[in-house]
């Protein structure tokens, strides 16, 4: 069937901010869908609240709405744009849930909008456990024995029949949020009561446990003619019981025989037909009993998913692109296969390599939370790697994680909990693969390791081979290793740093010796067809092979762009956005662009984003191997965050041309002594600072500078290990535990500017001229990590005089440092004095936000400057003109995923993503950000106030506003006294532990609709900590800073409820500068 001509315009719903369980894979799929539908001639309207996405680039579609993805706002967009159709299957669970809500409320009918790709019944059959189980039964497939609980008592009854352990899954939640495995009554009660609260349907599925079974995923697509094809099979290394997002996974499936695979495949195709996926991609999860082959269907997602993004990257088959085409009526035979050009999309991809995905965690940021992996996803990112064998791919994945490890252990950084060693070989945690490897080193058999971990013996046997090779290498001096042996070591995945550790030599020596032996990697191609057809695709990976490389001769200048690696806290999609923009810009000015990255969720690793793609780890070894093959004219290291930046020096030393800002200039900004010297030279103020290698030294520094102090380890990203200390005893505690202070690892101590306003400036510099892209005023005061702080542009409280001073300092500093490209400077303003906190001569987290707000594509300009262009020739709008609207960026915190961790914002970054709100004034823009994170703005009820002494004076005005808006007040004794003194009616509440205290009940029953609790420093006030955690669990709005409270209350007034008072505006309609 050809494409439909009865629909002219299509609304696409994106997935909103990056949260755990829903990351940038939906930008990847969404951007593909937007591009293809636009190319097909449809008018495309997009809504997504996440400014760091490629899909929200205004030139990509016709109408771009950076607005909250809530039924209320999407209805406003529908009313204004009147689209003919809605494509909801590429925006993750958020997109799907919003579409379901709109359909149920009759909005789609009211405006005559047709849901394409999947109908409501199919979505419900896919998502509602009960309907799904009935549907599976109707086609003769088994699901786990189960029942539904609508109250804790229901669950208790069900367990009587099923026995422990049971798997608990709340219906309709994201990434399995609120789910878990209960081994006893206590766990059952806890998880079920949480799950009931989280489930929009107040329903929790209680299921027989399939712990330890094999977990298989199938990516299947279906067209409107009822044809279905398999894109990819994926086998999980971690058995059932660990969320697939937290599992190491392998494609294709390794341990299924043809007969088993046929059953799995037939079942998958029957499922998409029975559920009724109209046209598009689906993901199906199955469990297979390892000893009798019994198959149980776990779940299916009738939409593109994290796994489909992975399957696309693993096979080269563009699932989202094809899904979008199928949704507008095409059938497989009408869609050409992009890569082979010969076959149609009906040709099922086949691969001749092994793909491994490994999750990236960030538990170190969430002290106090349980780090065991369960059915509730906790990973913040992932890496993918490609090798000719599992061994090669697995080892690559293990060194791609950006966690300081060079592979599967054996890198000098192994550290094991000896007391719990045996347990940790079996217990799923982020380190389990390392424990399994170590167990094999210590003489455990493959069977023992497999039995303890439930990991299939096949995988363990491969690991055992890797360990055997590792052991053999360790017995040889480097100089004696011959070419054949080196080749085998590489083929079994050992990295140069691992070989260096094993042979007691240096990475440089290993590399030199290896190259002298002629042992260099071979480049192979991802072509969807295992070389059955000739292709000219430029999607590459490295491997150690006897054959020849598939490379193309250089015909024009080449630029290598180093990506950002796995998403983690402090380094997310923003940097990928910058890399993608650089690739577009450099391509446009005549470069052949080559992207290197290992993150399968991103747009940068789409095979047609750059002229050539290497799916490889971002280590020195891997990058240099690519450079040896491709001989680029320049390498871009300043757009992918800290990952590529830290390679700058060594690449330069290896004779590579680093484009733009030189490694020397980078060092000038990063080395604190050299940077301070420059600030002194320019007469720029900065907070007094010192460095200490021991507590004694630290105390001396503290005496000179005075408290409070901001203390941090010398080399950090995302504020890791950073803290504010208010007195000597806190300083002692800090130096004693968290950071191992030593001469090699000194600690920095800065005067902490309490109550200062923080400002970020993003600018371009070409060595002659500076262009200030944006001045962003933070809402939270100094002391909150800039990544966790909301910010607003233009500044809402700074005077023109201050802003022009900020611009002046930016210009002088950028020129003095010798920046060629992008720079970000962080300022703090206290008592009208401007302090420079730090300067980063690279793309910052805020570049995409600033670009969306102003329409100036900063990353593209930065890349062009690196290639030698001048700002003066770029026709940029005047950078001093003030925006006529306000743009607010707010951080999205993952606290709901990490119960037990304190939610107070601090100098250590913990947010996973961001949203943007655009409005004519600051409160309205701020309110939009809150709604976009799907915080319900409190409308009525009680407000609980408990503030520290510092904030007592300022709470009065806030309290007055809250009372005026019709709320009643509860406050702790001290705060209540302040309010009573000001004549504000308030009810004093007793401490939690006091016998007749009612505050806990009032929070749990939902009477309290807003909690404002500002602790001072990092003193954990037991009550405060407990109440804040309670608020997170019960989804009650809570603020931990006074500035945040002010903004929220202004926003509540502007929004009047769910956003009735807020207007929508497309990016294309924003007045130009």
């Amino acid at each position, binding site marked *: 069937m050809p494409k439909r001509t009865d629909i002219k315009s299509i609304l696409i719903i994106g997935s909103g901010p990056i949260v755990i369980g829903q990351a940038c894979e939906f930008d990847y799929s969404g951007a593909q869908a937007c591009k293809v539908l636009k190319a097909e001639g449809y008018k495309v309207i997009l809504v997504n609240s996440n400014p760091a996405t490629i899909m929200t680039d205004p030139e990509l579609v016709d109408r771009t709405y950076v607005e909250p993805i809530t039924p209320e706002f999407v209805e406003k967009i529908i009313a204004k744009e009147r689209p003919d159709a809605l494509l909801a299957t590429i925006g993750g669970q958020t997109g799907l849930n919003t579409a379901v809500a709109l359909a149920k409320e009759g909005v789609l009918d009211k405006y005559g909008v047709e849901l394409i790709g999947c109908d409501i019944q199919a979505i419900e059959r896919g998502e509602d456990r009960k309907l799904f189980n009935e549907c599976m039964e109707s086609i003769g497939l088994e699901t786990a024995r189960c029942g539904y609980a609508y109250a804790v008592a229901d669950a208790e009854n069900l367990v009587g029949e099923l026995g422990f352990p049971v798997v608990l899954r709340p219906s309709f939640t994201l990434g399995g949020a609120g789910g878990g495995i209960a081994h006893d009554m206590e766990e059952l009660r806890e998880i079920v009561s949480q799950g009931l609260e989280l489930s929009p349907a107040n329903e929790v599925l209680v299921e027989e446990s399939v712990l330890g079974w094999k977990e298989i995923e199938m990516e299947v697509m279906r067209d409107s003619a009822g044809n279905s094809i398999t894109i990819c099979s994926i086998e999980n290394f971690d058995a059932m019981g660990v969320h697939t997002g937290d599992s190491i996974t392998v494609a294709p499936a390794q341990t*299924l*025989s043809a007969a088993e695979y046929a059953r799995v495949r037939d079942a998958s195709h029957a499922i998409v037909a029975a559920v009724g996926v109209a046209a598009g991609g689906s993901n199906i999860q199955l469990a297979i009993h390892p000893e009798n082959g019994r198959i149980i269907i776990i779940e299916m997602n009738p939409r593109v998913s994290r796994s489909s993004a992975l399957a696309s990257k693993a096979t080269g088959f563009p699932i989202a692109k094809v899904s979008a085409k199928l949704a507008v009526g095409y059938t497989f035979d009408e869609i050409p296969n992009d890569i082979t050009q010969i076959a149609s999309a009906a040709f099922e991809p086949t691969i001749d390599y092994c793909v491994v995905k490994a999750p990236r965690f960030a538990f170190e940021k969430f002290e106090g939370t349980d780090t065991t992996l369960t059915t509730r996803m906790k990973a913040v990112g992932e890496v993918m790697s490609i090798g000719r064998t599992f061994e090669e791919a697995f080892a690559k994945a293990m060194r791609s994680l950006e966690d300081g490890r060079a592979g599967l252990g054996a890198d000098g950084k192994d550290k094991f909990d000896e007391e719990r060693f045996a347990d940790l070989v079996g217990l799923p945690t982020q380190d389990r693969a390392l424990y399994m490897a170590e167990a094999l080193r210590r003489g455990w058999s493959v069977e023992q390791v497999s039995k303890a971990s439930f990991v299939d013996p*096949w995988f363990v046997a491969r690991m055992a081979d890797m360990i055997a090779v590792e052991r*053999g290498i360790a017995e040889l001096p480097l100089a004696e290793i011959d070419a054949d042996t080196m080749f085998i070591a590489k083929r*079994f995945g050992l990295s140069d740093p691992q070989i260096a550790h094993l042979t007691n030599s240096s990475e440089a020596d290993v590399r030199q010796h290896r190259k002298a032996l002629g042992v260099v990697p071979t480049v192979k191609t991802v072509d969807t067809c295992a*070389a059955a*057809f000739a292709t000219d695709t430029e999607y590459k990976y490295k491997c150690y092979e*006897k054959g020849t490389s598939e490379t193309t001769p250089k015909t024009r200048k080449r630029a290598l762009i180093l990506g950002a690696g796995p998403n983690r806290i402090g380094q997310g999609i923003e940097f990928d956005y910058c890399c993608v923009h650089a690739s577009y810009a450099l391509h446009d000015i005549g470069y052949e662009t080559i992207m290197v990255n290992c993150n399968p969720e991103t747009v940068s690793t789409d095979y047609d984003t750059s002229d050539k793609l290497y799916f490889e780890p971002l280590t020195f070894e891997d990058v240099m191997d690519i450079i040896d093959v491709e001989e680029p004219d320049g390498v871009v290291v300043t757009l992918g965050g800290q990952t590529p930046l830290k390679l700058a020096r060594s690449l330069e030393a290896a004779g590579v041309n680093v484009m733009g800002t030189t490694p020397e200039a980078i060092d000038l900004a990063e080395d604190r002594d050299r940077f301070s010297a420059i600030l002194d030279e320019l007469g720029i103020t900065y907070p007094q600072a010192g460095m200490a290698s021991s507590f004694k030294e630290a105390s001396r520094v503290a005496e000179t500078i005075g408290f409070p102090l901001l203390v941090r380890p010398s080399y950090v990203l995302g504020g890791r290990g950073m803290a504010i200390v208010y007195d000597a005893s806190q300083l002692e505690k800090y130096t004693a535990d968290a950071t191992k202070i030593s001469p090699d690892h000194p600690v920095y101590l800065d005067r902490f500017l309490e109550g200062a306003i923080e400002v970020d400036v993003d600018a371009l510099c070409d060595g002659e001229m500076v262009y200030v892209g944006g001045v962003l005023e933070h809402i939270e005061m100094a002391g909150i990590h800039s990544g966790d702080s909301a910010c607003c542009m233009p500044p809402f409280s700074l005077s023109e005089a201050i802003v022009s001073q900020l611009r002046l300092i930016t210009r002088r500093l950028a020129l003095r440092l010798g920046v060629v490209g992008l720079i970000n400077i962080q300022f703090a303003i206290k008592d009208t004095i401007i302090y420079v906190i730090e300067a980063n001569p690279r793309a910052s987290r805020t570049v995409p936000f600033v670009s969306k707000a102003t329409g100036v594509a900063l990353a593209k300009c930065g890349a062009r400057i690196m290639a030698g262009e001048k700002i003066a020739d770029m026709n940029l709008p005047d950078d001093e003109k003030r925006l006529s609207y306000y743009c607010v960026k707010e951080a999205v915190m993952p606290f709901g995923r990490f119960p037990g961790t304190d939610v107070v914002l601090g100098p250590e970054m913990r947010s996973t993503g961001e949203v943007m709100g655009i409005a004519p004034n600051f409160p309205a823009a701020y309110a939009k950000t809150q709604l976009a994170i799907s915080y319900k703005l409190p409308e009525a009820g009680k407000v609980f106030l408990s503030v520290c002494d510092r904030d007592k004076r300022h709470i009065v005005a806030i309290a007055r506003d809250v009372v005026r808006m019709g709320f009643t007040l509860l406050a702790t004794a001290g705060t209540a006294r302040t309010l009573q003194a000001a004549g504000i009616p308030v009810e004093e509440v007793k401490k939690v532990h006091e016998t007749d205290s009612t505050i806990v009940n009032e929070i749990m029953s939902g009477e309290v609709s807003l909690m404002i609790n500002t602790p001072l420093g990092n003193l954990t006030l037991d009550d405060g900590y407990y109440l804040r955690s309670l608020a997170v669990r019960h989804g009650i709005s809570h603020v931990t800073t006074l500035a945040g409270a002010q903004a929220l209350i202004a926003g509540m007034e502007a929004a009047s409820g769910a956003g009735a008072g807020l207007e929508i505006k497309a990016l294309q309609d924003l007045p130009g500068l």
Partner: protein
Amino acid sequence: MSKQSENLLAQTSSPLGARALLVLNNGAVFEGFAGGAYGEVFGEIRFDTSMIGYENVISDPANAGTIIAMTYPQIGNYGLNLGDIAEGKTDIVGFAIHSLCKTPSNWRSEISLSNFLLEQGVVVIEGIDTRMLTQNIRDHGNVFAAISTEDLDSASLIGRLQRRFGDAEPKVSATVPATAAAAPAPAAPAAAPTFAATAPATPVIPIAEGVE
């Protein structure tokens, strides 16, 4: 391969077999190692792109008498259930792969693929770049090949292959008797415990003489 590397691999589940050679009648040479029976086989070479399902490929009657190259690199991962193999036998004569798994894992597996191929007298070459091989077969059309653990002189092996099948227009593969590989083969050392006692002795030449 060097003695040092052989010692290294001897510690893994896949010690190196004897040296083996795969040559094509268009002159391409692939050096690898024996993974099944020792000997020398000639026949049409075909590639198969199944990622799962080698048991179907080797038991497909249409593949009788041929040398099969698998494009997926790791073959034999889930072993073999003889019930999945028609008549419990294979009629392919040669098997060209990247690596052969000696430690399969699957609840239904009765025998490892490597032992099965050994029992069936299939001459296996592993450790070759099967992607490059596939590209060669794809680009040349009907290609004939020889795998040998006996004649490691590529010029000599290519010469004999070309005399048999020509270097441009290969003859039809039906002239290769399907029963050629029926004779039990001597074992490769350390590859199969059941045959470990038998040292490799007489070369197996499963191709009937007089094809030309």
